[in-house]
């Protein structure tokens, strides 16, 4: 493979299905690292991952949608760790520990990724199901897409991740 072909392959595509704090840290640290290394990064947010790109606004149009908006509302800072959640205690504890070690906060890492040119997309189908409109997302999130778009992106990516 020639130098130029390798150069072309510097692209990464990532599915972010999880809304867990620890997994989102992983996703955004990898995304920022890759972007810093000159890699084009596409992040495709679906299901529980959607909250990571959401503003702190209420969502939902039907009864169930509103219930979901209540119980899984807020923004990325509401993400709980996948272990030791303890009804929010774990989030508080990990937040403190990370702060003590000077790790950037989740929203800072996400906003840095936008600044570094990481392309973020919501999955149209899970947005419909969960009744989360595009207007609920932060600035910098691209218009919603489907699986076909993700596959086309992944096909030309040297790195593909599912988180």
């Amino acid at each position, binding site marked *: 493979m020639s130098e130029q072909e390798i150069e072309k392959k*510097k692209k990464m595509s990532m599915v972010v299905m999880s809304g867990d704090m620890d997994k989102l840290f992983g996703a955004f*640290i990898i995304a*920022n*690292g890759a*972007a*810093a*290394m*000159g*890699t084009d990064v596409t992040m495709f947010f679906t299901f529980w991952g959607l909250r990571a790109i959401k503003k702190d606004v209420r969502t939902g149009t039907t009864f169930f949608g509103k219930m979901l908006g209540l119980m899984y509302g807020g923004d990325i800072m509401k993400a709980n760790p996948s272990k030791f959640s303890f009804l929010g205690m774990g989030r508080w504890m990990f937040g403190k520990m990370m702060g003590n*070690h*000077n*790790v*950037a906060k989740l929203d800072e890492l996400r906003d*840095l990724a936008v600044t*570094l040119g990481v392309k973020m997309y919501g999955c149209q189908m899970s947005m419909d199901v969960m009744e989360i409109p595009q207007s609920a997302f932060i600035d910098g999130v691209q218009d919603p897409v489907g699986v076909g778009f993700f596959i086309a992106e992944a096909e030309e990516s040297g790195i593909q991740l599912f988180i």
Partner: protein
Amino acid sequence: MSEEMKADLDLDLKGLLCPMPMVKVSQNIASVPVGGTIRAVATDPGSMADIPAWAKSTGNEVISAEKVDGEFVFMVKRLK
């Protein structure tokens, strides 16, 4: 070697953790001319692996990477 060389830009990366040392170097490389250098000081031991990897991947050069009094001192040269 790095003591005698004057860098075009000094970067203080002390206290920053992964991925920030690498991100900061990457964000600042464009502010020095091609052939110019950045002297970066980090405290994250992971940066000893990350910054050379960044340089390899982006086509730049780490002239030196050394541990001095518990800190990690890098001389990075912009090649393109």
